[in-house]
């Protein structure tokens, strides 16, 4: 549900998969389940799943996208990561 306080996603900050979240690979991407909020989230491509799993290796979300994603698709990935941060699938570190 939309939160009242909109938190902007800071792509220059370091992020990682929340340790309260389990990821299960599926043919379309992955299912993510947050054990705390009990929310289920769909990751709609395998490439996005790969980025999410590897975020912790990079000093910022931007650096991860530079390394893993074609330039012309960065916008889509940023939107997806922002949405995952809002649902607490990702957390800052």
């Amino acid at each position, binding site marked *: *549900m939309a939160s009242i306080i909109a938190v902007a996603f800071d792509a220059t900050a370091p992020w990682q998969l929340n340790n309260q979240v*389990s990821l*299960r*690979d*599926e*043919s*379309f991407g992955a*299912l993510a*389940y947050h*054990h705390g909020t*009990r929310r*289920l989230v*769909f990751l*709609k491509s395998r490439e996005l799943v790969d980025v999410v799993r590897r975020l912790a290796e990079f000093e910022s979300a931007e650096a991860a996208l530079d390394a893993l994603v074609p330039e012309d698709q960065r916008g889509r990935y940023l939107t997806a990561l922002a949405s995952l941060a809002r649902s607490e699938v990702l957390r800052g570190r």
Partner: protein
Amino acid sequence: MGAESSLRNRFERGLAAPICLTWELTYACNLACTHCLSSSGRRDPNELTTEEAKALIDEIAAMQIFYVNMGGGEPMMRRDFFELIEHAVERHVGVKFSTNGTRIDGAAARRLSSIDYLDIQISIDGVDAATSDRVRGVGSYDSARRAMDNLKSADFGQFKISVVMTKDSIEQLDEFERLAAHYGAELRLTRLRPSGRGVDTWQELHPTLEQNRRLYKWLLARPNVLTGDSFFHLSALGESLSGLNLCGAGRVVCLIDPVGEVYACPFVIHDEFRAGNVRAAGFRDVWQNSELFRSLREPGNAGACTSCGSYDACRGGCMAAKFFTGLEMSDPDPECVFGHGEEALAAKRVTLRPTPSPNHSRRIPVAISAR
């Protein structure tokens, strides 16, 4: 949020493991609700042993099924109930269990409060004893409210109040919302199915088309009210309700019964929808290889709904609702919002309604007491 159509198509072809697995722990129940989906009452002597149940939990964990909906019967009537839920939670399998609340006294409430990743759903079918007890039995409403009070006193946190929508309870939507707010609870409304003992009572209890239209509008305005994706047949009225809006049977959901039989969904405990037994080669084998599940994952046929412009919204409705009212899978849902289901039912010259295959109803009526 309604799932977009490409994702929904993927779901209809099935997943590596269910999103939502329901496991009825026992057929034993100290109530005898007239709409019981599993025709529960008497324990089955062949129910999974503690060791078998733990092995199943281990397999569920290995398949990365994130949480299990446990029910019954009354799950708390199993003597190993706490042992099993603790075994699950230790393996990071979240548990949500559905209970009539009769066994949640002060001590049980405190023990439940000490377990992480546990979600409790207490059932009532009216916002007052008179309405609820008509369906669930005399004394059941007061027991459920005592359970809610005990959970609140024990600081359990947020639990769920679960209500089946009958022609009576549907008139109390705002009061249910207030009751949930009083406890800081979440409200969960689900569809009355003509399954289990509901085969005999659905006709009398199900909401009218007009009531369903009001429910749809009420839910649309309240995306925080949970529905377990129950009312996707109402999405034909316009904007989709929140949820996946598809029949998940054998695709994203299934049911394991107390003796280990796997059925396509919680509403079709009937031989025709039995996919296999976990005692044979395990649950994973049934989920991945059962012929029934494979056929349910094939692209569907819109049947009589082909020419209806709303088929994409409601997908022809609920398989169980059709089956147990004597309709064909190619017919519209009996509660089709345009009345096509009622027409289809009226057009059947002889309606042969299936009876539940395993029936664990008590042979004599039960009197409800504190224990």
